[in-house]
């Protein structure tokens, strides 16, 4: 079985393929996207990740041609496509609600784009068969969309877009209607297709796990502005600002004040503890701000990932530089890890995740000592209230 649905361009992978230059989009009085620049490389799997209303879908719709930018240019292989209507753009979309044509069978749905492109009939038949094979739905050609399950319809929607050999495949939260297990299957499927086809994928999602699992690069967006672009590891390990730190993964944010600085570290005083941070740089709350040097007296937020926390019964000294006393409020056993909610001082809560590894969970009410590496601490500028997705904690 030879399945050869590939893009016909010969540019090497990594070539700057889709360029978004200074794009701005205003709806009435709302600015959905604020002067955005982004370059998508050829053959890349790029995710646009952010909470709802961050502008990611608007950006995708501008690439597809359903929205016109208020300002700026969108270049595909060097040519500005802003003035082209959607049906003239060499991109195809997989929609959130699949949008298969209910009055056509599956084969006719997939053939739709090829017919518009006036591809000869024998070739249409050939390519429809190939793309049905590609999504492993060969036996469904004659069915009607309403006879298929959500996951099956999603595969057909993928096949219907890919059969046209688009230069860029746009995916608008295509899995949000699927249940968890099916979603994980589809993620693997999509990754497999991407590897096989070498097509540029631009994937919109609000689900960070989905973005982390599939993407070559992730674009984190918030409030119409790109907050950070990078690989999953990079964004997780090295968030450039407080929004990214809180949005990707879980995070303990502890309000603190800078008490002292030396040549490489800063000493932060919180309500209930003193902790050392391995940095003299204050990272901004969002991409709107700039990093700046820490100064004594700055009110900041110290951020520590729950998995960097060590939890030990009180009295067992871990030898780490940063420690705090607390008591376990509750724990949840998540299989691979145990997640503790620990109160420190008055009404402040810290989230800690420790490997389960056969250990007995520490029961609620037990006095514990929290500790963490100096390296685990990052320092962000304040204003936690604006960041809905971030988990707030205090100590």
């Amino acid at each position, binding site marked *: 079985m030879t399945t050869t649905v590939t893009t016909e361009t010969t540019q090497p992978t990594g070539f700057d393929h889709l360029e978004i230059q200074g794009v701005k989009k205003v709806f009435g009085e709302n600015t959905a996207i604020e002067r955005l620049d982004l370059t998508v490389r050829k053959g890349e799997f790029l995710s646009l990740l952010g909470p709802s209303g961050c502008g990611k879908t608007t950006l995708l719709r501008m690439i597809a041609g359903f929205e016109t930018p208020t300002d700026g240019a969108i270049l595909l292989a060097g040519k500005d496509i802003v003035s082209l*209507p959607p*049906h003239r753009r060499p991109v195809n979309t997989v929609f959130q609600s699949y949008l298969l044509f209910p*009055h056509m069978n599956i084969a006719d749905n997939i053939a739709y784009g090829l017919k518009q492109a006036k591809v000869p009939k024998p070739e249409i038949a050939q390519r429809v*068969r190939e793309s049905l094979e590609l999504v492993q739905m060969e036996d469904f050609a004659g069915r009607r969309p309403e006879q298929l399950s959500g996951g099956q319809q999603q595969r057909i929607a993928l096949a219907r877009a890919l059969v046209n050999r688009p230069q860029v495949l746009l995916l608008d939260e295509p899995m949000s209607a699927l249940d968890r297990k099916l979603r994980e299957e589809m993620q693997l499927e999509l990754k497999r297709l991407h590897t096989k086809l070498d097509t540029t994928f631009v994937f919109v999602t609000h689900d960070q796990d989905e973005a982390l699992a599939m993407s070559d690069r992730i674009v984190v967006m918030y409030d119409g502005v790109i907050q950070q672009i990078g690989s999953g590891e990079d964004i997780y390990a090295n968030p450039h600002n407080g929004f990214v730190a809180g949005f990707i993964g879980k995070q303990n944010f502890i309000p603190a004040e800078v008490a002292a600085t030396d040549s490489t570290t800063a000493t932060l005083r919180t309500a209930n503890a003193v902790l050392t941070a391995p940095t003299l740089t204050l990272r901004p709350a969002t991409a709107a701000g700039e990093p700046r040097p820490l100064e004594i007296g700055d009110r900041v937020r110290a951020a520590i990932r729950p998995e960097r926390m060590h939890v030990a019964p009180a009295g067992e000294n871990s030898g780490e530089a940063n420690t705090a006393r607390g008591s376990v409020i509750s724990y949840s056993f998540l299989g691979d890890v145990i997640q503790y909610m620990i109160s420190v001082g008055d009404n402040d809560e810290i989230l800690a995740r420790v490997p389960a590894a056969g250990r007995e969970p520490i029961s609620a009410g037990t006095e514990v000592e929290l500790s963490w590496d100096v390296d685990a601490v990052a320092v962000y500028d304040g204003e936690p209230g604006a960041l809905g997705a971030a988990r707030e904690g205090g100590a």
Partner: protein
Amino acid sequence: MSTQTRPKQPRSKRPATKFFGPAAMSFPTWAYALFFFIIPLALIVFYSFGYKPDQFTAIATDHLSFDRYPEAMSASFVSTFFATLRISLLGTLLCLLIALPFAYWLAIKVAPARRSLALALVMVPFWTNFLVRTLGWQIMLSPDGFLSNWMQSLGLLDGPLDILYTRTAVQIGVVYNYLPLMILPLFVAIDASGKKLREASYDLGAGKVKTFLRVTLPMAMPGVVSGCLLVFIPLNGDYVTATVLGGASGSMVGQLIANQFNTAQNWAVGAAMAMILIISTLVVVGVGFALLKLGQTITARLNSVPLHDGRA
């Protein structure tokens, strides 16, 4: 089997249903159909086999025959019948041609906030008395009416407007009277096909015209069918429009039937004419459906992808 005693499942939530039974509870529905449709229709069928015994009696049914049918099909009836059919078919077609772009515009181009206003503008004349709005056309189309005067003063006409009391006037009148019945189902059907599916079509390379022909129109077909039925069937039996606007040259078969019942007091012949009208209407509708199915099968054949392996 379990020996546990379970509380007995209530067979019906309403005690009244249990007491009277479902047939009694659905009385309003079947009584409506029985008393206002089945019995009157059965009477018409029955009367069409009767005869007019003397000048002062409208109907007698003491001996039954098919003789009223040939009697009803006089030369003038047949010619009026075909004229009526022409007016109805042409009227339905014209309604469709006018309503389709209008409904498309209303469902797709008009901002949702203004849609109810536009729909109200369609509906308000429709809620006005049928006779009154038809009389309005009589005033407008009359040779010394304002339309005639304007067209003459603008130099569009040499003499007075010569439309009133012709078949053209009836044609204009029925299209006007029945247009809302075509617009509404078409609007609903086009609206239901949805913006998102049109976007999917554009995304796959189809322009606006192709999207209309391949997605919007096929999905709106149920609306087209119900609109055509809603217009054609009552239009075929209409006699008010023809009475007001048609005069001698623009009469419709509904008038002939009404004459038999009201003026000539010959219910048997009137009933036979009504039966001929009902049956022929059903035949035309049946032929229309067959043509539609044939057309859909042919377009489906032309458009489908032969996958050569029996799967499609």
